[in-house]
């Protein structure tokens, strides 16, 4: 499988190199859908320039990257394009290896459940075979590398790509079973943008499953392992934050990075839902609603953990999707990461109900973003409501996508254990409903 992957990587690198040389690069870097105040390349350059002038880059509200990014780009700023191409390639390779291992795990688990007679007799068509799963890792790498969102994010040199790489390595480490590495990469991801904190739960669930520790609240081994993992994670986080202190000898980066992510002071339009709401709100209520919106991101972890405790990788996928929809400054790079996972669940195709409408909504909204931006900002014949409407529609499409996959996944699981032909008490055909 290495050769097709290399081919895909070459094609992706060529596409990116061509776009870097063309005039589209400047245009794409300016798009608000691709570059947010958190990860725009212009701000990285500005921060490094401020540093050269002897001023802390965190003075003023321009630079919101972590000190490790400063360190990374201090030496690599001339090779920025190469760096971003390499990060994309690394992400794709990491996802490829992770999904390869995951497929082995899935197949092993399926085999175990069949031998244990856990499946109903008539679900032969739902059983997955290694043949059909053979090309899934390649498809995942392909989906990530050649996704227009990823290409745009790379051409704009948005540091979201670096965040994606760290999360991909975290997923690889988790699926490989190394708690230590998984904790380290999760700490790095949380350190850069706050929201991967919620990925702690699916990673923990997966590692527990891998160690064959049952998830019972009374079980001592469960709590022991949880404590170990949490300790690893928190210690790495603390170590990284303390190390960042020594870069500039100041704690300035904490309000600039985490304070900025949590309190959302910059209301530049993006594809998220925060900006319009807070632009219209009175000062009096803004603290309350900031808290509500931020809790909304973290809130789904516990219910999903309870429902999906048998399927932690699917939980991880849903969690990444929720982060990229509800985070304070989403960009298309975040969307690209969870869309890369869609081939892993391609066996759910027969249960997905909204494929056509979803694809239409997502494609049309993606195309309408620049149009309505132009109409609003340049032509002056539209206003912010138009752009907000498209943002809203786009996010509704994404939420529909998640809930569709969720429903399809759970439905398949139900059919596996209860049989394909469900009947009600009076003998007529029954329909599964997601309540």
């Amino acid at each position, binding site marked *: 499988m290495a050769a097709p992957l290399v081919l895909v990587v070459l094609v992706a690198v060529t596409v990116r190199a061509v776009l870097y040389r063309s005039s589209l690069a400047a245009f794409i870097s300016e798009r608000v859908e691709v570059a947010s105040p958190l990860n725009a390349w212009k701000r990285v350059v500005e921060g490094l320039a401020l540093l*050269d002038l002897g001023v802390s880059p965190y003075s003023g509200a321009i630079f919101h990257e972590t000190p490790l990014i*400063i*360190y990374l780009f201090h030496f690599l700023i001339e090779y920025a394009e190469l760096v971003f191409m390499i990060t994309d390639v690394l992400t794709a390779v990491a996802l490829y290896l992770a999904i390869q291992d995951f497929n082995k795990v899935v197949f092993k688990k399926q085999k175990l459940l069949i031998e244990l007679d856990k499946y109903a007799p008539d679900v032969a068509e739902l059983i997955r075979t290694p043949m059909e799963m053979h090309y899934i890792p390649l498809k995942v790498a392909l989906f990530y590398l050649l996704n227009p969102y990823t290409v745009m994010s790379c051409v704009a040199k948005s540091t979201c790509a670096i965040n994606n790489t760290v999360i991909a390595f975290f997923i690889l480490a988790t699926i490989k079973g190394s708690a230590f590495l998984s904790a380290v990469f999760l700490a790095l991801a949380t350190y850069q943008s706050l929201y991967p904190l919620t990925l702690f739960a699916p990673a923990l669930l997966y590692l527990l499953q891998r160690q064959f520790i049952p998830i019972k609240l009374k079980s001592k081994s469960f709590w022991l392992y949880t404590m170990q993992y949490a300790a690893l994670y928190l210690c790495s986080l603390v170590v990284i934050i303390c190390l960042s202190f020594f*870069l500039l*000898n100041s704690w300035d980066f904490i309000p600039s990075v985490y304070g900025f992510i949590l309190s959302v002071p910059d209301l530049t339009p993006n594809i998220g839902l925060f900006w319009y709401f807070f632009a219209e709100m009175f000062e009096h209520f803004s603290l309350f609603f900031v808290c509500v919106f931020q809790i909304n991101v973290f809130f789904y972890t516990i219910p999903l953990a309870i429902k999906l405790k048998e399927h932690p990788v699917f939980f991880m996928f849903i969690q990444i999707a929720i982060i990229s929809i509800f985070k304070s400054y989403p960009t298309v790079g975040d969307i690209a990461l969870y869309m890369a996972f869609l081939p892993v669940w391609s066996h759910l195709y027969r249960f997905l109900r909204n494929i056509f409408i979803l694809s239409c909504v997502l494609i049309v909204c993606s195309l309408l973003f620049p149009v309505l931006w132009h109409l609003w900002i340049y032509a002056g014949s539209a206003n912010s409501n138009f752009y907000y409407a498209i943002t809203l529609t786009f996010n509704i499409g994404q939420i529909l996508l998640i809930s569709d996959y969720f429903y399809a996944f759970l439905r398949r699981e139900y059919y596996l254990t209860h049989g394909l032909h469900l009947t009600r008490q009076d003998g007529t055909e029954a329909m599964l409903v997601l309540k």
Partner: protein
Amino acid sequence: VCTSRFWFNYRHVANTLSVYRSVKRLGIPDSHIVLMLADDMACNPRNPKPATVFSHKNMELNVYGDDVEVDYRSYEVTVENFLRVLTGRIPPSTPRSKRLLSDDRSNILIYMTGHGGNGFLKFQDSEEITNVELADAFEQMWQKRRYNELLFIIDTCQGASMYERFYSPNIMALASSQVGEDSLSHQPDLGIGVHLMDRYTFYVLEFLEEIHPASQTNMNDLFQVCPKSLCVSTPGHRTDLFQRDPQNVLITDFFGSVRKVEITTETISLDSDLAGFESKLPKDELATEPQKYAEQLPVAQIIHQKPKQKDWHPPGGFILGLWALIIMVFFKTYGIKHMKHVF
């Protein structure tokens, strides 16, 4: 100033141009005349004699020609422009010919004709100037020292109402009719089809024809021009603001430019005056060397060069700590036993 337009107001243009001619004949150059006309008579499609404006019937005298310099023509003849010319509040881009460049030794003659009423004068059939505005404009001129003495002549219906409100000193005013009376036109020309002149101006011009630069005729004679029997309306005048006795005011004080010239027959040498003037300069001012440009501008002091900032580098402790951590993670993951392969 002729404040009317359209063909049937031919006589007002002819009035103004005739007074213009007389004034030029008596020595005032174009640079000292501001002529405001609608200027739509000579080239009017209804003019049977194009490029001419006649002031007398039987086409005896063409008052339009090559040397008529109209300063404000057509739509530029507005109340605003007129008042701006009087008071001197004109935009800096106005050419000299359109400015009234008078000072406190200037005698100014203002002649206005057109359609008027009790207290107002109609400009170009669209706006009016009131007698109060005019009086205030003259007061501004007095306060800005823009005239020495001012003679104001107006030939409109109820013209006397226009000088009722003057309150500035040294103004003498004449009008063709009293309040309640109309000024009448003089004679129509059946060849051209309109009245060619107004009565009052016609008789004033007859009077002016006898004036030459050396004549000693005074203002009292001008007041007698056009009695009621000839003019049908009663001409009026106002001299209470004027400091001199009208008996002693020459017509040529206003209508002509009479210079007092003394011709000498002997030469006058001016050299001795200059020598005396030069010695008055202080000595030290003359003895300086010409300054060179570079010395005048000390460039090094003007452009203060900041010392070049050293590029920022991450501190050694940070780099050490980071790479120690990375190596620790590496070996924790892959085991210590691989160390010998690394080294």
